[in-house]
Each structure stands twice: as structure tokens, then as C-alpha cells.
């Protein structure tokens, strides 16, 4: 069998998984896409193992390991998604934006003269309070 068939199939499958990871909104669908990518790698491993007729069969052994690790990954990943969903009420990736730069952040390092009272840290600004609650939310999400 021509080696290009499994190789090209694996490449395309990998890119489809890539698209899914980048384009899907639901975290579980992203996990599915990750599975596709892993399987593309597995196909490659098996195909090259067969082609090379390796005595140790490294490719097949690694494929088995990858499958096991993928199973573990899907378990952990789903647990995380569930925890996030419990805390946030959503599992949409593009709604989990606690690390985004907000306009409140701009005031902090800036000393334009008028903001001195704000920047000396004694007066908690509303933006900072929001940030603080956001951090606690994040902490809850990860525990």
C-alpha cells in the first residue's frame, strides 16, 4: 500500500481537528476535536510502524499509550469542564475571559497627575473590586 494514503489521511484529519479546536465554542466539542487530532497522530504512528517493520514495534506501543492517555485526558478534561459549568453556568470557551485586558487596568500604572488619589492604593476602585471577585470566581472554578 502506498504510504502517502495513511500519511495524507492523518494530516487532513489532524487539520480538521485543528479547525475544531479553534472554531468550536462548546468546551466539550473542543475536547472532541482534540480526540480527532490524537487519532490522526495514532494513524501516523501505526502506518509508519508497519512500514518500517520495527522489531520493538515502537509505533504500536506508543499508539496504545496514546489511547490510554487520551482516555485519562478526556476524563480530567470533562471533570474540569463540569466544574467550570457548575461555577459559571456555561461551558462556552469564549465566555471565560477573566484574563482579558479591561479599561480599568489602564488606570493603575498611569500617573497622569489627576489619578494620584486612585493609584496610591488606599481607595479601592470599583474596577478593582470587580477584578477581585473575578479572581475568587476563578479560584472556585479550578478547585
Amino acid at each position, binding site marked *: *500500500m*502506498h*504510504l*502517502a*494514503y*495513511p500519511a*495524507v*489521511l492523518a*494530516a*487532513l*484529519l*489532524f*487539520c*480538521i*481537528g*485543528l*479547525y475544531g*479546536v*479553534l*472554531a*468550536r*465554542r462548546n*468546551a*466539550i*466539542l473542543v*475536547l*472532541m476535536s482534540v*480526540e*480527532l487530532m490524537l487519532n490522526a497522530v495514532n*494513524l501516523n504512528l*501505526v*502506518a509508519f510502524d*508497519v*512500514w*518500517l*517493520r*520495527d522489531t*520493538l*514495534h515502537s509505533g*504500536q*506501543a506508543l499508539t496504545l*499509550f496514546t*489511547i*490510554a492517555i*487520551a482516555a*485519562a485526558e*478526556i*476524563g*480530567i478534561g470533562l471533570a*474540569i*469542564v*463540569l*466544574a467550570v*459549568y*457548575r461555577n*459559571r*453556568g*456555561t*461551558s462556552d470557551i*469564549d465566555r471565560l475571559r477573566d484574563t482579558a485586558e479591561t479599561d480599568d487596568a489602564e488606570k493603575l500604572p498611569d500617573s497622569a497627575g489627576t489619578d494620584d488619589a486612585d493609584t496610591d492604593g488606599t481607595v479601592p476602585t470599583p474596577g478593582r473590586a470587580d477584578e477581585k471577585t473575578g479572581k475568587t470566581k476563578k479560584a472556585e472554578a479550578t478547585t
Partner: protein
Amino acid sequence: MLLNVTATVGTTTAAATTAAGDHPGFLSPSGVEIAFLLVGLATLGAAVITVTTKQLVHAALWLVVALGGLAVEYLLLTAEFIAWVQVLIYVGSVVVLLLFGLMLTRAPIGRSPDADSGNRWVALGVAAAAAAALVWVVVDAFRTTWIDLDGPAQGSTEVTGSFLFRNWVLPFEALSVLLLAALVGAIVLSRKRDTDTTVRPGTNRTAKPGTVKPGPPASPGTPGQEEQS
């Protein structure tokens, strides 16, 4: 055959390339190749539907098709054991886990118009460019390489058991520890804490299931409906 292949990767490649003349070209595919091609196309199609469908549960089911297709490909490559493991673990457990995940996060049944994020076109560009680059490189590199599928199966259960427990037994045992750790981790992560028993109401996703129309496919919809009721 196993005893013969003791050469290094480089010499094997060289031998394969020199033997290229003995093999038929693209225009005279063998039966295995035709089967591989057809199943590969089906797999690709299923994968594409998996990442593009608007119905979340359907995506999981199309994933079953894609992974099953891959299992067939493994079979065609004479890796029998891996094919069955693929069916058992991926189709049997992983997809079921994913379906449970969908249910527990109250994924909507039926078409959800916002299944893809706004990043879609960027993702498409990146994926298409990556596909073009990879395919070009792979085809360019393995244009004249053939796999010799004759002889005893290289991935039969016997062979697999032999190399796995002869050469790879230590990593195999280490992997069991990893699986155990993953198990514990998943339990710790998904366990509800006593202080945080109430589910915080979601902004819009949790409100939607009430207005969701009954989805056309019955069998994938049932777990979602059960969860909903």
C-alpha cells in the same frame, strides 16, 4: 520477517525506495488501497461533520463514525489489536463520556446556531494552511514509498502482547499509575463541595433548554431529554 528487519530506519527507507520500481503506481491501486481510500474518505467526511455540525449531540455521534473508520484503517494496516482497542476505548468509552459531559452541561438538543465561535474564519484559514503545508510536505516526502503488507500481521494480538510485555512492560506499568492519578483527579475535580451545592444559574445557556424544540433524531436526544426532565 521479524528477524529480518534489524536494519536501521535509514537503510530500511533506502531499501523501500530502491524497491519502488517493483510496486505498481498510483494508477493501478490494489484492493487494499481502494478500501483504504474509501474508508478514509468516509472518515474524513465524518470528521468534517463532527467539527461543523450545529447539533452538539450529532457531533459526538459523527465522532463515533470517524473513530470507527479509523479502526477500520488500522485493520487494513494489519494492526488488529489497536483497531479493537480503538473501538473499545474510543467508541465505547470516550464518546460515551463525551455524551455524558454534554448532558451534564445541559447542552441543547437540536440545532444551536452559536455552536461555532467568531473565530471560525481564522480557524479555517489556519487549518487550511496547515493542511496544505502538511499534505505538500508528506506527499513530497513519501511519493515513492510503499508499505509491504504481505507476510504475517504485524499487529495481531499475539505480536502485540509479545512486544508490549517484553519490551514495553515498564512504561506500561507506569501508564497504569498515570491512569490511577487521572481517576483520582477526575473524582476530586468533579465532586461537589458541601458549601457550594447550589448551581449558579447561567446567563443564557441554562435558560435555553426550556425553549428548545425537540430534536429530529430520537436516540441521541433521549439522554438530553432525560437530563432535562
